[in-house]
């Protein structure tokens, strides 16, 4: 029960309007949890003063792990002793974020016992974020979570918790089993996830098709995006149904196709698949009539990141197409990924993401060093490529 009630006029304003408010949730938690109650007081003070009252702690964690706990202390421990420690625990989410109600209740029960009771479902990398606990509660909370079958996720200069779209569990566009691959990657890189050994963070994100629902092309150091290499499947009858039901196929689909590869004569839709950019637009507009091809796999890309130290980057294609089928041990990408990790560890600067490293050394040098030949799919437009150096061409010229 809350000992002291804080007046929170500024926070209260955030409860107005149509949207769910984190303030309402903290107030509910504060009825039974003193940490949540003190958090209201501290936040109100921060809003009044326009000043944060947190200090970042760098040493707390659980035995044997180098990540999964983000240390945090308030700089007003005398005034708010209940939240003098307010560490975050990151818990590795199940692939695709599927839970039973029972599992969710169990996680919340652990957090009511050992923390503020507040959670963030989910953090931007995908983890279950448990907000606010004390140093002495970290090990007991971790022990209880592991008994329930959960593990901490990644933080620091390590592989971060891999995440994926719901893929084949719910989505007919999935070109490979994102959830199975995500589980496999999580287990394959356990060491790299829990024992930080990289220059900076390394995120894997898996999307089942180019709709890229987990934004892997913008948020992951290694993006694995489902695609196909044969023809888009067309059901002409359903195309005509869309047209009869008011879809302006010429305006909405033909004109919006970035590959300029669709023809529509009012009765039949034709696609020149050799020019298709696999953008999914036509399929998204007419999901009953069109579907990705049958020869499905994924494109592997490298190097995106959100802006932190430097600006945002999008991923570049490394492997245009690869079949993603079990057993995943046999996929040819692991050696390539190991080579990338080795090179980045060897040559990368502290806090340099792999995408920034590639920009610094040049994609041409990077792919040469990791043992990949240059391919046309790595560039956006012919003759606009700053990366590939045609040595044989120059040698002939010089002779």
């Amino acid at each position, binding site marked *: 029960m809350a000992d002291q009630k804080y007046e929170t006029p500024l926070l209260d304003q955030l409860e107005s309007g149509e949207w769910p408010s984190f303030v309402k949730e903290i107030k509910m938690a504060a009825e039974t949890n003193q940490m949540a109650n003190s958090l209201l007081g501290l936040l109100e003070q921060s809003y009044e003063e326009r000043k944060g009252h947190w200090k*970042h*702690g760098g*040493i707390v*964690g659980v035995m044997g792990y*180098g990540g999964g706990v983000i240390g945090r202390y308030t700089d007003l421990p005398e005034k708010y002793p209940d939240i*003098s420690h307010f560490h975050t625990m990151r818990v590795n989410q199940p692939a695709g974020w599927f839970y039973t109600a029972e599992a969710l209740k169990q996680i919340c029960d652990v957090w009511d016992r050992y923390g503020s009771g507040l959670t963030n479902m989910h953090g931007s990398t995908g983890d279950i974020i448990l907000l606010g606990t004390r140093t002495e509660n970290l090990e007991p909370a971790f022990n209880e979570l592991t008994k329930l079958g959960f593990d901490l996720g990644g933080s620091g200069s390590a592989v971060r918790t891999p995440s994926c779209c719901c893929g084949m569990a719910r989505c007919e566009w999935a070109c490979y089993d994102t959830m199975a691959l995500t589980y496999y990657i999580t287990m394959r890189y356990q060491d790299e996830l829990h*024992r930080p*050994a990289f*220059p900076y963070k390394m995120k894997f994100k898996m999307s089942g098709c180019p709709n890229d629902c987990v934004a892997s092309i913008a948020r992951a150091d290694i993006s694995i995006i489902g695609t196909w290499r044969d023809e888009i499947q067309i059901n002409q009858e359903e195309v005509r149904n869309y047209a009869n039901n008011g879809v302006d196929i010429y305006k909405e689909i033909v004109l919006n196709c970035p590959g300029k590869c669709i023809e529509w004569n009012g009765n039949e839709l034709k696609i020149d698949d050799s020019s298709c950019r696999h953008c999914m637009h036509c399929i998204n507009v007419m999901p009953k009539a069109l579907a990705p091809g049958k020869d499905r796999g994924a494109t592997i890309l490298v190097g995106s990141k959100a802006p932190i130290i430097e600006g945002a980057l999008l991923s570049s294609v490394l492997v245009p197409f690869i079949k993603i089928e079990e057993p995943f041990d046999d996929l040819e990408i692991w050696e390539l990924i190991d080579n990338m990790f080795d090179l980045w560890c*060897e040559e990368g600067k502290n806090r340099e993401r792999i995408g920034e490293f590639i920009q610094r050394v040049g994609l041409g040098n990077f792919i040469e060093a990791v043992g990949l030949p240059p391919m046309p799919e790595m560039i956006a437009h012919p003759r606009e490529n700053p990366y590939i150096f045609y040595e044989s061409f120059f040698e002939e010229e010089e002779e």
Partner: protein
Amino acid sequence: MAEKVSVSEVADAMYKMIKDTMGIKKWKATDLQKASIELFGADRCDKQICKDAIKELINSGRAVYTYFGGSYIEIPHDEGAKNI
């Protein structure tokens, strides 16, 4: 072929490197690995031995991972930000 150095020997050497430079240098896992391979020679020490040595140091509690902008390996100590 030269006989491989043991994991505990490398762990001890790493511990000494960290201890001797406490407050002067922060060691990342790769820095410790490079320094150990240089110390023992590439024919006696490799990346896997270094990885295992770091694991031994951490699991025994002689060293801990810390995060100050990047992840480092340090001798356990009280940090400035800590509240009692």
